Structure formats: C-alpha cells, structure tokens
C-alpha cells in the first residue's frame, strides 16, 4: 500500500528542478555516505586499548579461527559517518511530527541527563538488593504516579514496549481466568485496532473476533454485544480510539463485558488525550498498558527502546508477571521468585527487572509536569488536534464530524478523481519539510490520514502546517498530479523500490567478489 516500484513513471529530478547533478552526488548539506564496511582501513581502530600481559588461554580450544570481517575505522571517521547518517533523518527536534497514535512529542533533555547518573545507569540488575535501595524507590515512585493517574491498584513494570504490555495484560487475564477454572477461547478486537492487538491475542492462544465500527467511528455496541458470550476472555479496546474519538458508551460496554465474566483490556496508546482528566479505572477498565515512550515522552529513538507498564485491577494483580516490588516490614522488597505473595504469578516476560532507563525518564517527565501540568498536557493535546480539525475540515475530508480528542482522522475523499493518492499527498508533505501523518491507518476509512500534533507544538507551528496542507489540497484540486506522484524530490532519496526489496531481499552487506578475492 505504500512505496514505489519501477512500473510507475518517474521524472528525473533535473527535469523537475533544473540541472542538479554534482560530481560527488552530494547536494550542499545533503552528503552521500558509504557503509562503514566500504570505508575499511584494515587493522585500524577507533579505540586505543592496551595489549594484555601474556596469559594462559583457557578457552578450551574453541578460539575463533579466521577473521570476523569487521571494518577498521578511526574515531573521526566514525563520528563523521554517524553524524552524516543522522542528517538524513527527520526528527521531533527538527519539526512537527504528526504521526497519529504515535504521540511524537518533545523529549526533554533533563530526562536524558538524569538517566545517565552513575547511580542509575551504572548499577547492575543482579548486584545485591541491599546496594540498590534508591533504584527500588524510583521504581516504586513511578508505580505510585501511574497508579494514581490510572486509578488502578497495581502496576506490572517489566514489559519492554506497548506490544509487550499487551502480551503481559492478555496473559495475566488468561492466568486469572484459568485460576478460576474458566477456559475461554475468543478475544474481541475492534477493526480499528492497532495490528499488535490481534497479534497479541493470537500469541496468547486466543481466536481473534473482529468488531465493526458504527457510523460515528466508534465500536458498534450492538455488534459487540451480539459477539459477547461465555467463551470470550476479553475485549481489547483503544480509548480514545484510533479515529481520535472517545468511546462515549464505554460504561455500557464495560458493563456488558463484565456481565459475561470477561475482562476489559484497554490499549493505552492514546492515554495522552485524557491523562490527568480521566482515570481509566473510572471507565470500568480492568487492565491497560501505558506507553512510556508516548504519553510520558521517553524518546522513540528511531523505533525503540520503549517501555510498556501495565496497570491492573485488584482481581488481576495476583497474576502479574515477575518481578514485583512490594512494601515489606523492612521497606521495599524485590520479589523475583514464584513464592509467597507471588505464588500465582504468570512467570517472567523479560530478562531482569524492566526498562529502568525509561522509568527514570518517565518519572522525571511526570515530576516536571506535576498533576497540574499533566492535566494541561491532555487539554493542550486535545485543543491542538481540534484546532487542526477546525482549520482543515473545509479543505480535506474529515472522516467523522464533531470534536475529536488528541488526534484527528481524515480520509481521501477530497482526492477523488484527482489521480492523487493518500501516499502521494503524504510524500508531497515531505518536500514541504514535514514528516507525514499516519497513512492508511486505521483501516476502517479509505486512504486514512491520521494527524496527532501533540501538546508540544506552538500555535505558530500549527498555523504553518495548516497553511501547507491547505496549499497542497488546493494544488491537488487544481489538477497537477505529477507534483504529487513524483514527490518527494528534495530528499536524500526519492521513493524507494519496496517491491524489489521484498522480492529479492538484500539484508546485509557482503564484499563484492573481486574485493573478497583480493583480500584473500
């Protein structure tokens, strides 16, 4: 659904922009950069290490024979290489990043500084617990904030990302059900859900039963109730949902789910819309993961690491995975084994204790904002999204009328008969200096464009973006599809051939045969 393949007709950039060929292939500040493997100076090294004094090798005769094949580069070459690579990336630090359901907000640098304090970064997960009381205190403080914000009484902290949190939540639900001798086989998942939801339910051994949306972009309650039954283990619902809408019948939905003995799981990817204004527990939710890398601003880092703690109701808490931190008679205790209060636990989902580095950043973020600042986060996130909605709904087609939450969903009806697709429109935004919105998701509208500005954009930034989208929409109507179908043209690379990449995968560098022969 995305990408380009050679079948499409493409005009070279020089036809579009005039001659731009250079000797190097560089274009001003856009610098071509080879792979590190192509910059090898054999024997060279970017780290000065001493040679050890003579010693008796005790590797049992299993020493590596022959070279590994790693290139040798000095420090300046490495620093330049990775700096040049960085300059080929779009980032929040460089501009608005309106990816819907991804919550690309500012990442405060204080949080980076604190995560690197030696007392937090340079401690080992298995050094004696008596030498890390501050680590337990920090984790417990984070848990206290998350419990207060969700209204749920327990937090499982070890999941490493949102999808891992989902796995934790659904496995915990299954453990609780089986502990009461209740074997169920289905999990209900709305069609608008993230792909991780059905994948998670399947990984927990459940059949996935999709629930359609109604005409207002919310769960079709009648369809949901018709699918509920004693074999349903859980409903997995995202709220606000991926159309950017609050599920306004959530109390009725929760009651219906609970009436059959099932659990109500909430995907917390969109918690940013309601943090500090609504506690998930007050919506009837039993279990919800929180993406610390979304709502609580730990950096996305080009795709991770994340952290996905799971808030749990009191009837799920005894089944939460290890490890636990509990308040014991002598202070905080780390429970790592399935015994005592933890005898019913699910097991372990990850090595060691969770994403401590992310905990530090998230706690610093929450302490900085406070109860008042977090509530303001939700309000400004919702205000910014609605401002975009109001200013753009006459230019591009709004999928569902009325107020939205922290993100707003448009679709491709405004491009009808223009010869321009959602993909083309998104790629044209790139030439204007913007990362596109989320495209083709959720699946319930045609050619979806899901925009989430977040609370850390100024009004001036939104106004500029609005102007660009309006301008592109006007150009799309005026009938010059080639501007769109060729876009982007000003980037380090133009559209890439994804079809060939998948058909004949090249997933690693290999020396070309002549080079290899010369080396040998």
């Amino acid at each position, binding site marked *: 659904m995305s990408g380009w393949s050679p079948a499409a007709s493409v005009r070279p950039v020089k036809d579009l922009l005039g001659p731009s060929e250079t000797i190097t292939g560089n274009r001003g500040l856009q610098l071509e950069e080879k792979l590190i493997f192509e910059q090898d100076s054999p*024997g060279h090294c970017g780290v000065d*290490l001493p*040679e*050890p004094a003579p*010693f008796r090798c*005790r*590797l*049992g005769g299993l020493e590596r024979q022959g070279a*590994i094949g790693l290139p040798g580069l000095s*420090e300046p070459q490495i620093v330049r290489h*990775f*700096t040049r*690579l*960085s300059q*080929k*990336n*779009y980032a929040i*630090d*460089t501009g608005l*990043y309106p990816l819907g359901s991804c919550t*690309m907000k500012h990442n405060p640098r204080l949080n*980076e500084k604190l995560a690197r304090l030696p*007392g937090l970064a340079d*401690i*080992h997960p298995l050094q004696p617990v008596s*030498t890390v*009381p*501050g680590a337990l205190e*920090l984790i417990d403080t984070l848990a206290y904030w998350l419990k207060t914000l969700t209204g749920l009484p327990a937090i499982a902290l070890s999941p490493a990302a949102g*999808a891992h949190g989902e*796995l934790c939540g659904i496995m915990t639900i299954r453990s609780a059900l089986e502990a009461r001798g209740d074997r169920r086989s289905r999990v209900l998942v709305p069609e608008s859900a*993230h*792909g991780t939801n059905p994948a998670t339910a399947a990984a927990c051994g459940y059949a996935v039963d999709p629930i359609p949306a109604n005409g207002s972009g919310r769960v079709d309650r009648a369809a949901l109730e018709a699918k509920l039954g004693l074999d349903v283990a859980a409903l997995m619902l995202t709220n606000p949902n991926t159309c950017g*809408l609050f599920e306004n019948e*959530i109390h009725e939905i929760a009651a219906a789910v609970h009436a059959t003995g099932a659990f109500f799981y909430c995907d917390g990817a969109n918690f940013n819309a309601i943090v500090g204004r*609504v506690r998930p527990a007050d919506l009837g939710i039993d279990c919800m993961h929180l993406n610390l890398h979304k709502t609580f601003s730990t950096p996305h*880092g*080009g*795709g*991770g690491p994340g952290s996905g703690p799971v808030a749990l109701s009191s009837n799920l808490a005894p089944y939460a995975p290890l490890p636990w931190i509990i308040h014991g008679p002598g202070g905080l205790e780390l429970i790592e084994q399935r015994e005592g209060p933890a005898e019913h636990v699910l*097991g*372990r989902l990850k*090595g060691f*204790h969770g*994403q401590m580095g992310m905990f530090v950043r998230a706690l610093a973020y929450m302490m900085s*904002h406070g109860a008042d600042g977090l509530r303001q986060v939700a309000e400004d996130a919702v*205000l910014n999204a609605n401002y975009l909605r*109001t200013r753009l709904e006459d230019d591009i087609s709004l999928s569902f009328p009325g*107020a939205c939450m922290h993100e707003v969903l448009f679709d491709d009806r405004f491009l009808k008969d223009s010869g321009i697709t959602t993909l083309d429109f998104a790629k044209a935004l790139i030439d204007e200096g913007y*990362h596109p919105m989320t495209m083709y998701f959720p699946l319930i509208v045609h050619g979806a464009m899901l925009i989430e500005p977040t609370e*850390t954009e*100024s009004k001036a930034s939104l106004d500029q973006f609005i102007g660009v989208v309006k301008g592109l929409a006007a150009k799309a109507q005026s009938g010059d599809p080639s501007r769109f179908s*060729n876009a982007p043209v000003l*980037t380090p*690379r133009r559209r890439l051939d994804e079809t060939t*990449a*998948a058909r004949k*995968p090249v*997933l690693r*560098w290999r020396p070309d045969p002549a080079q290899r022969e010369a080396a040998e």
Partner: protein
Amino acid sequence: MRYLPLTERDRGEMLAAIGVDSIDALFADVPQAARLDGLLDLPRATGEIEVERQISRMAARNVAAGSAPFFVGAGAYRHHIPAAVDHLIQRGEFLTSYTPYQPEISQGTLQYLFEFQTQVALLTGMEVANASLYDGATACAEAVMMASRVTGRRKAVLSGGLHPHYREVCETYARFVGFEITADDPAPGRQGVAPLVDRDTSCVVVQNPDFYGEVRDYSGLARICHDAGALLVVVVTEILSLGALRPPGEMGADIVAAEGQSLGNALNFGGPYVGLFATRDKFVRQMPGRLVGQTVDAEGRRGWVLTLSTREQHIRRERATSNVCTNSGLCALAFTIHLGLLGEAGLTRLARLNHAAAVDLAERLERVPGLHLVNRAFFNEFALRLSRPAAEIVETLASRGVLAGVPVSRFYPGQEKLSGILLVAATEMTTADDMDRLEQGLREVLS
C-alpha cells in the same frame, strides 16, 4: 510549564476558532461520572533544579558499579563505553525520530540498522540478522516460537545451562499456545540435552558460554538435532565473547538469540538492552521483528527500506510471526557505533583483555582455601563452588564494599546443591587492585 508552548492567549484564540467556550466542551464525550473536576493528589509542576535534586537523591542511595570492586555478570556486563557512542546516540535526529516508516526521510536510521544487521550476522557467523528485539531473553523466546513455525513441531528442549531468566521467559511465552518446554537440570557441568531430543522436538536451546561461564562446542549436538529434524538455537548472553570464540554459525546453529548490551549499552539496572536475532537465509520469512533491506530509489541510487513486512503485525495482524512492534533501535545504534569504533582489531583485543582478566582472577582465586573453580574453560566469567552459601558471602562482602558476583541461589532458591555456587565476572574494567580486594575478602570470609 516549560514544555508547553501554548499561551493563555493562544488557548483563548484557538477555542474561539473551534467555536467552543471552554476546553471542557471538547471532552463532552467522556461520561460525566468519569470526569475528574480537580487535580489528582500528586505533586504540582516542578522546576528542573528540584527534579534533578530529587532524582539525584535516589541515585545517590545506590552503589554504582564504578565505585567499588565489581564482579557481577550473569547476563549483563560492565564494559567501557567510548565517549563518542553516547554523544552520537543523543543527536536529536537519532534520539527523537520514529520507526523509519517514511524511508525518504529516514535513511540515517535505515542505513545504521542495515550496518547493525550485517555486524550481527558477521559476529554470530550466521547469514541474516534482524533489526533487534527487546533483549536476549525475549529474543530466545522468539527463537523457540520460530523453530516451531519452521518445523511444525511443538516441543522445545532447554539446556540447564541456559540463563534461568531466559528459560522463564520461554516458559511464559509458550504457556498458552499449546507448547511443551522441557528444561534440563540446571547443575553446572551437565550436558544432558542430547538424550531429550526426539522426533517431536522443534528445537534445542543451549547457551555459549553457558550460564556458569563454561565454553562449549555444540557441533556434535547440532548434528544430533539436525538428524532428528530439530533446530539448534544458540544463546549468547555475552556478545563480546564472539571476539574470541568460534561463532555459533560455525557450530551448526540454526538460530542465534543474543544479548547485545555489552557493546555500547550501560547496565541500566537491567534495561533497556538490545536483543540480537540471527538465522539462516532459508528461514528469513519466518523471522520475528523488523528487517531493513537494500534497494534503489526512483533515480537508481542505492537506499534502504523496511522490508518483508508482510510477516509483521501491522500488515498480517493475528497471523503475524510475532506481535513485536517497537524494538531497541537506539540501543542497536549504540551497539553499531561501539562495534564500528572497535573494528576487527579492537574487538578481538577487547575480547583478549576480558579473557586475560578472567584468567588472572581465576588463578588468584584458585589459591583461596574453601573454594574451587567449577569451569574447565571460560571466557570472562566463571563459577566458583564455595564451602558456604554464596548469598551470605556476597552480602558480607557487599557490606565491606566489594560486589563479589551473583549467587546462583538468587535464581534457584530451593536448590540446596546450588547454594554454594557463585558466578564471578571480570572485564577490561577490572583492575589488579579490585582482584586483590576480592581475593582478600574471600580469604577472610571463608576462613
């Protein structure tokens, strides 16, 4: 609040543009009973000075590894991280970018992930590697699941020498999908998995060096597995060992699941780390996680994209090879930069330094009465059998300012025969003075 750019005036203008009186009108879909009118009972917004003070106070209550003689390993290792690594990964273009779904403006991330995949394949001796998973333990569980998809069988055999956290994560992942996990006795020195392999076995999971630090040759086991139609999964928890040891790919491994923390990543009390996952080309479409592939752009120039994504949850939903989405991108970058700085010469020298430190330490400790070395061969970590419970010894030495290692009883509290076993690691960070202090401390407490 310093992170929020809207002014009160902006908010007023924006509400007017939207056509509502107050922000509350935008939350009208929230049922009345669930709306919080006031603030939650949490502290109010706090300035940078005070946040730094409060978190620094918590940090100061911990004993940092660098402040004491330090011998703790068991799956996470303290190594030197060159200053350039942490500088480069904090460039905003890396730190604050998303998953590279728009390749035209993500070539930086895509290219380093392609370099990462190549480095992991080279180190492990495998043909292909993915763009990372959460950590070594989850990579191991994903390997077990993948072996089942490849073989169509549902029984995994885990070595007793596999890190107990890895075993536990495999058991959790397998628990609800009708999968049988057989784990061998965890006693050190045991090699009991071969007799457990049969025609129903999907894979055998072993570790090298194993949990007790023992270096092993799994070539024979690989043949047994392959004869039975099973896959051999080799786990590596100390990736630096592959700077010195024969890689799993040369021993016949079908999948390698590893922890990459040792290169570029701090201890961080257990996370975030970086899971490495490598396999054979023929299994690539059964792999979990993201893959970056080389291709060309509209003008024929080389570039990179996420590829084979029809395996993944955002396309295939409940039929995906894994539910994983976010991985460990930035930790993979740290790994790639550190390994880039080391190169062939630096990595092999660093591995020699580690082995030399461990040999030096073993030779000193072998002279201490009341303990003996369990291992025949080891890399930078080994097991000692003490005449007294290791947990007590570690606690006593910690109170004297020496972090002596990991008592195996922390993982197997009920197993009396393991209570005397202590895992001790030495790296390039370990000094002769540190070793003196451990040796002296053990002499005192064991006498």
